[in-house]
């Protein structure tokens, strides 16, 4: 069998593995830091919402905050709701009362009005905190609005490329960002395709 390092499958830096929340860190604006957001959440009795459009970094921010919640002695329990999931899974709220627990719900807008009202009562009765992501406030105090801009996209992409930027230029990033109307997730997926196209064009077959 032939043996050459050229034949090793190279990673695409825009693959989910590198871009998923947790792998990619959240970039705070200079005036807003993680500590300030958690102070705001604590001041609201550990109840709050991260609000922003699709692909603006809500889940990435959530992942960053969850790590810091642990550092502050809180225990987080994350539930992710997908499109059409209007009820919480059974095990999400069938837990003991615990003043340290913060129930984290990613995709809170999926819940109907009645499940949200019921959840609010359960959380209050059990002394839990509630931190959610959603597209509009939905009755919870907003601790942060996530936004994106083309220069943030350029910074993120430079981080992902880690100095190997031969296939993707800053202009590619700005163009993809504009095409995807500021949705960072879709921008990175667009760049995945461009990277595949250009890296394959230069690879020996």
């Amino acid at each position: 069998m032939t043996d050459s390092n050229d034949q090793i499958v190279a990673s695409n830096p825009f693959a989910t593995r590198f871009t998923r929340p947790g792998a990619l860190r959240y970039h705070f604006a200079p005036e807003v830091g993680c500590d300030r957001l958690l102070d705001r959440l604590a001041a609201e009795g550990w109840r709050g919402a991260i609000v922003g459009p699709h692909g603006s970094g809500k889940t990435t921010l959530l992942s960053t905050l969850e790590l810091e919640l642990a550092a502050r002695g809180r225990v987080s329990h994350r539930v992710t709701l997908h499109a059409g999931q209007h009820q919480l899974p059974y095990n999400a709220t069938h837990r003991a009362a615990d003043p340290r627990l913060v129930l984290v719900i990613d995709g809170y807008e999926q819940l109907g009005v009645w499940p949200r009202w019921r959840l609010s009562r359960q959380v209050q009765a059990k002394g839990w905190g509630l931190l959610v992501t959603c597209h509009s406030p939905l009755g919870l105090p907003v601790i942060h609005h996530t936004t994106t801009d083309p220069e943030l996209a350029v910074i993120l992409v430079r981080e992902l490329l880690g100095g190997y930027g031969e296939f993707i230029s800053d202009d590619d990033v700005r163009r993809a960002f504009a095409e995807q109307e500021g949705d960072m997730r879709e921008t990175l997926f667009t760049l995945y395709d461009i990277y595949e196209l250009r890296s394959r064009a230069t690879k020996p077959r």
Partner: protein
Amino acid sequence: MSDPRVLILFEGGQRTYRPGEMLSATCRIESLSLFEPKAMEVSVLWHTEGKGDEDLAVHYFNRVSADDEGAMELRRPYQFQTRLPNSPLTYDGIIVKIRWCVRVRLFLVRSREIVAEQAFRLGDIPAAVLVVPK
């Protein structure tokens, strides 16, 4: 003080294997004398990579811990071998890839971790060809 460096060396410099072939490799940690290692985990695994959810399976795993008489072992080159399975074969697809690698995770004090990876190929499936409509 720079972090210890993890080197993964395939025997004979081999990087492509046939299904069922034996993979032999050595993991060596450089500058470890300056650090207090707690454990090292060596795995041979495959994972998918692309735009969607990832899949992963571990084919070989071994943990050497400083607790169970392994403190000295951690400072020596760690040699291992494993017979590779028949599938899944390495695949360089466009929307999904299958990558095989040796992964070493070194645990240091104060919850610090260093992860090193070295990819290799299993099988000889040609890479997908991207056809761009004219």
